[in-house]
């Protein structure tokens, strides 16, 4: 049987290597198309900016120069480098994310598992969820101190997607797995820890990915209203106020790239974890 298995294995690796070549070529084509689209987008922007010739729509190369400069020169308002602004924004997102995660996951597990907890929590959740996090800014500013005022806005943005996905993940668990666990001696007390939580991890990761994307949107809005510790959102609004639109756009691009990297990273981890857990 072992011999047979190793032969099958060999055959499989042969086919896999064949597919890999094809897969790599496909990947190259996909990447090429994406890059081409970005180039076309930038060219179109440049053309339009030249036609308009307005200060509030700078040409791409001006924005690019401003972007590079922002990393090597302090800004005139808070005397910070772009790197420091990025760090400030990231710290706020991290705080918001950690608090959202610590609260949303256990609550989501309980709401998914227990009808009573769901009935108790759902009306409140569904009432607060439609309120845009930005609407909380005035409240957050007076209620919390730096950096928790902005972190609170981020928290609101991340909390609900993680909560909803956790609840959904619990409800989606195949009941036969729960039954199997019961016949193996799992009691009410360790069901959450031993079965529900691991089963829910892939869906939970989806919630985190969505939440992180929303987190970046919230941070900019929150920082625009006024913060003392810098931040990319602060940078954008400060530059807009003094009419330095190339710097403003540079800040916007920084947010875009950071969001892209965060969500891309989360999505990569999501896939890796699912595969590693044998749940694809």
């Amino acid at each position, binding site marked *: 049987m072992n011999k047979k298995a190793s032969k099958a294995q060999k055959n499989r690796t042969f086919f896999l290597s064949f597919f890999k070549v094809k897969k790599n070529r496909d990947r190259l084509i996909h990447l090429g198309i994406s890059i081409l689209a970005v180039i076309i987008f930038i060219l179109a922007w440049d053309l339009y900016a030249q036609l308009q010739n307005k200060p509030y729509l700078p040409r791409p190369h001006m924005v690019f120069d401003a972007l590079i400069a922002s990393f090597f020169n302090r800004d005139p308002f808070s005397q910070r480098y772009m790197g420091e602004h990025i760090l400030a924004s990231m710290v706020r997102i991290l705080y918001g994310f950690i608090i959202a995660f610590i609260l949303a996951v256990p609550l989501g597990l309980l709401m998914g598992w227990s009808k009573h907890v769901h009935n108790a929590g759902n009306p409140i959740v569904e009432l607060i969820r439609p309120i845009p996090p930005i609407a909380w800014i005035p409240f957050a500013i007076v209620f919390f101190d730096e950096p928790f005022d902005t972190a609170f806005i981020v928290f609101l943005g991340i909390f609900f997607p993680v909560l909803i996905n956790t609840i959904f993940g619990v409800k989606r668990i195949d009941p*036969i*797995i729960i039954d199997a666990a019961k*016949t*193996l001696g799992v009691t009410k007390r360790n069901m959450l820890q*031993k079965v529900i939580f691991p089963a829910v991890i892939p869906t939970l990761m989806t919630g985190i990915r969505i939440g992180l994307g929303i987190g970046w949107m919230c941070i900019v809005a929150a920082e625009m209203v006024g913060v003392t510790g810098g931040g990319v959102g602060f940078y954008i609004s400060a530059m807009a106020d003094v009419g330095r639109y190339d710097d403003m756009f540079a800040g916007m691009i920084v947010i875009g790239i950071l969001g892209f990297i965060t969500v891309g990273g989360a999505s990569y981890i999501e896939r890796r974890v699912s595969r590693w857990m*044998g*749940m694809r």
Partner: protein
Amino acid sequence: MDGNALIKIEHLTKIFDSDDKSVSAISNLNLTIEEGEFITLLGPSGCGKTTILRLIAGLEIPSEGIIYERGEKVEGPGPNRGMVFQEFALFPWRTVIKNIEFGLEIQGMPKEKRREIAMHYIDLVNLEGFENAHPNELSGGMKQRVGIARALANEPDVLLMDEPFGSLDAQTRNIMQRELLGIWQKTNKTIVFVTHSVDEALYLSDRVVVLTSRPATIKKEISIDLLRPRDRAGKEFAKLRHEILGEVEEEVTKAIASERKKEES
């Protein structure tokens, strides 16, 4: 209570009540299962076989009647009644060995010891080399080996098997049946097996219990005294198959007739 009765089912009735209808699945079923016995419940599809096993497992509560295990009333699921599911019901995030260790882990057994026991059962079900594979990397037959090992690792008094080979191809099913008999003989477990295949019931069991169409109750009990390994092509096998098939087909016909009546009304 009988000295060697492991499970005693008395006047078991199960009615599923939902908002708009109530389904009577089992009606006044009485059955005694002896220690070490390989008993098969055979019945047409939808007659209530799974429900009987789930009741013994404690996953369902009887509407009426009582189930005893070693003289004690069954009042919920527990590790002394292991179950093997047609859908395998493995934990997809756990590797083969961690699936098998699961029950021991729940008991709080130290890691070294449960590893050792799990390895023993991996050996027993011929899964050497797949310890660290995840269920989604396994074929159906191998998944069910994990299911069997996982249930056995808890050292239950009885193994409840609900059409465990129902979704496997014919060849694999035959192999699994043969190996299951080997496992049964090595472990001296009591096995309650559910199937709608007459052939499977005859090949495996000491005793075949033919169930009526829904609501299930016992139609006939037949002891199979053929020596193992049994020859599926043998004359006596064929005779018994003929006899049991007659009993089962009567019930299938009834079931179809009652379905038709329901559709007409």
